[in-house]
């Protein structure tokens, strides 16, 4: 499935959860109407994913097969609850912006998928790297979407006005349909980019032979 041996870079780019695996679409569409929301949600998810991958990998040899999904969910829920407390303690403003989103991380299928596909089979260190890489890749994907939506939908980037007072914001991009449109544009860009890369790779060996 993966061509790269580095689990961190693999998640960040080659197997990017948002653009390549198309996982965790619910937060991707719901929470990307501003850059700051997207970054915060991405980082919180990365944190949860790193902890849960590490814990699941540490106990992987003791988990009875029949209850492995329940085990993963319990561990993921624990990691999310810990994150919830930590965010509440670290910054009240981040918590006010992010509070309602944090419990939703439990339901992010990306985290369960990494538990089942990676952490349950691999040692602790690569699992932690995989979690961090996938999480940051997810944060990167969310920020890409958040940037497009905030710039077009509100005319701002991280709350800074970009276009002056005459700019009429394209509010559609802040609303749910805008999320789908922005996601489609990014997926198209990413797919065409990968297609071009693949063509280059296929052509090169042929050229070498001739």
């Amino acid at each position: 499935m993966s061509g790269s041996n580095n689990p961190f870079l693999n998640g960040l780019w080659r197997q990017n959860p948002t653009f390549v695996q198309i996982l965790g679409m619910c937060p991707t569409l719901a929470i990307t109407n501003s850059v700051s929301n997207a970054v915060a949600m991405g980082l919180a998810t990365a944190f949860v994913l790193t902890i849960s991958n590490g814990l699941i990998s540490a106990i992987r040899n003791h988990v009875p097969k029949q209850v492995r999904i329940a085990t993963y969910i319990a561990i993921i829920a624990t990691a999310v609850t810990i994150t919830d407390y930590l965010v509440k303690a670290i910054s009240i403003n981040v918590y006010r912006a992010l509070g309602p989103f944090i419990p939703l991380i439990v339901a992010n299928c990306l985290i369960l998928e990494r538990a089942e596909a990676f952490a349950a089979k691999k040692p602790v260190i690569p699992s932690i790297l995989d979690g961090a890489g996938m999480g940051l890749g997810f944060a990167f994907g969310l920020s890409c979407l958040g940037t497009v939506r905030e710039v077009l939908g509100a005319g701002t980037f991280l709350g800074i006005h970009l276009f002056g007072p005459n700019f009429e914001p394209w509010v559609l991009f802040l609303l749910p349909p805008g999320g789908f449109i922005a996601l489609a544009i990014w997926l198209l860009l990413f797919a065409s980019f990968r297609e071009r890369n693949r063509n280059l790779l296929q052509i090169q060996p042929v050229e070498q032979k001739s």
Partner: protein
Amino acid sequence: MIKFLGCLSFLCGVLIVGTHILTLDRIRANQDEILRQSLAQLLPGMQRQIVYTVAPSGDIAVLHAEPAGAKRIFAGFDANNRFLGLVLEASERGYADVISAMYAYSPETKLITGFTVVEMRETPGLGNKIGADPDFLQNFKALDTTHPIKAVKHGAKQNPWEIDGISGATISSRAVGRMLAASIQEMAPIIDRHKARLESGTE
């Protein structure tokens, strides 16, 4: 398998309780900060506040120590010790979890003059608009409390005691209506009884 699940639950429990204990003080401090911010927002210009607790009998007393879940009334005064208004707390089950909020109430005009959400877990983008949507918050510039407060559909507000709801967030809007109605019904008679004392600024 049972042994494994037991150990797992124990481990998760220990992790959660440990984090809770470690972060408790910081969270308390942050909640006090939210309280200060909310009060400043609801009663602009407030310099001094007196916090009263309401006993089950309806009597009020100045709060000195941490309350044990008692209802609180905040009386706010400006720099010249002029009475600005009262701030009350209300909470109600919303769509996802309990919504807790604070609102400013003027015992003179019997109007609600401000509303702010302290904590909620409503759906992002829909229900959580009750804390930020300017049109919705416009409802609480002067909300009549002499009639039972009621949240109505978006655009259907006709009377000064109705709250113009948010379309797509009916359950959260109605929860706000219910929490204010219940809170006013309970607190208005108590405030009326102690009006002179609450406004005097003396303990």
